[in-house]
């Protein structure tokens, strides 16, 4: 069965410090990978998605970047955090199905709560 791991679960960082959130998927190959952010009491904002190694699409220009160094690894980074980067970050994966051109069900990780002080 497939599992998704995301860490760290909680992070408190000072303004101006770097960030690295990591996500790995097990039990599948060539997944689509996604990073979402969720502000308190709000909906899900898509930040980045990737359909393959080294292929990153950015949905919202901002202080963050993403990388996919391996097939099942997705990393969210920042060189200098801002207060507005605080939030709940969610990694997700979906399978690419033959004959299905659109999105398939996304499976989410447990989330990483980032507080920037």
């Amino acid at each position, binding site marked *: 069965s497939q599992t998704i791991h995301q860490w760290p679960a909680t992070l408190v960082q000072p303004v101006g410090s770097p960030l690295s959130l990591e996500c790995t998927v097990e039990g599948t190959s060539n997944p689509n990978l996604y990073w979402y952010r969720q502000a308190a009491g709000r909906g*899900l904002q898509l930040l980045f998605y990737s359909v393959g190694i080294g292929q990153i699409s950015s949905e919202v220009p901002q202080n963050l970047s993403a990388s996919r160094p391996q097939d099942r690894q997705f990393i969210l980074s920042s060189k200098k955090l801002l207060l507005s980067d605080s939030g709940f970050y969610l990694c997700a994966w979906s399978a690419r199905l033959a004959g299905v051109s659109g999105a398939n*069900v996304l499976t989410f990780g447990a989330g990483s709560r980032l507080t920037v002080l």
Partner: protein
Amino acid sequence: GESVGLHLPTLSVQEGDNSIINCAYSNSASDYFIWYKQESGKGPQFIIDIRSNMDKRQGQRVTVLLNKTVKHLSLQIAATQPGDSAVYFCAEGSPGYSTLTFGKGTMLLVSP
């Protein structure tokens, strides 16, 4: 796509009641729809999905209804339980796009 951030609407029900959570979507080309449940501090969990060639699909205690004419999706939960208390999101997908667009979410509060 991105989800527009607004404070969440809330539905309050009594334990044992049936709950109906509604969602309006905007893209007439969307052909895939999902409902997610998110408990506090956790990632969203898949509940049920439906493709546009169907107008109804049933799971365990849940039913999703799709009305493509008015671009409306609903989630019905039978015999709602306190454990159903969570935020519920609808999401839509379109052919050729690898991403889902999420709705704003509805908070369901179930009183014992």
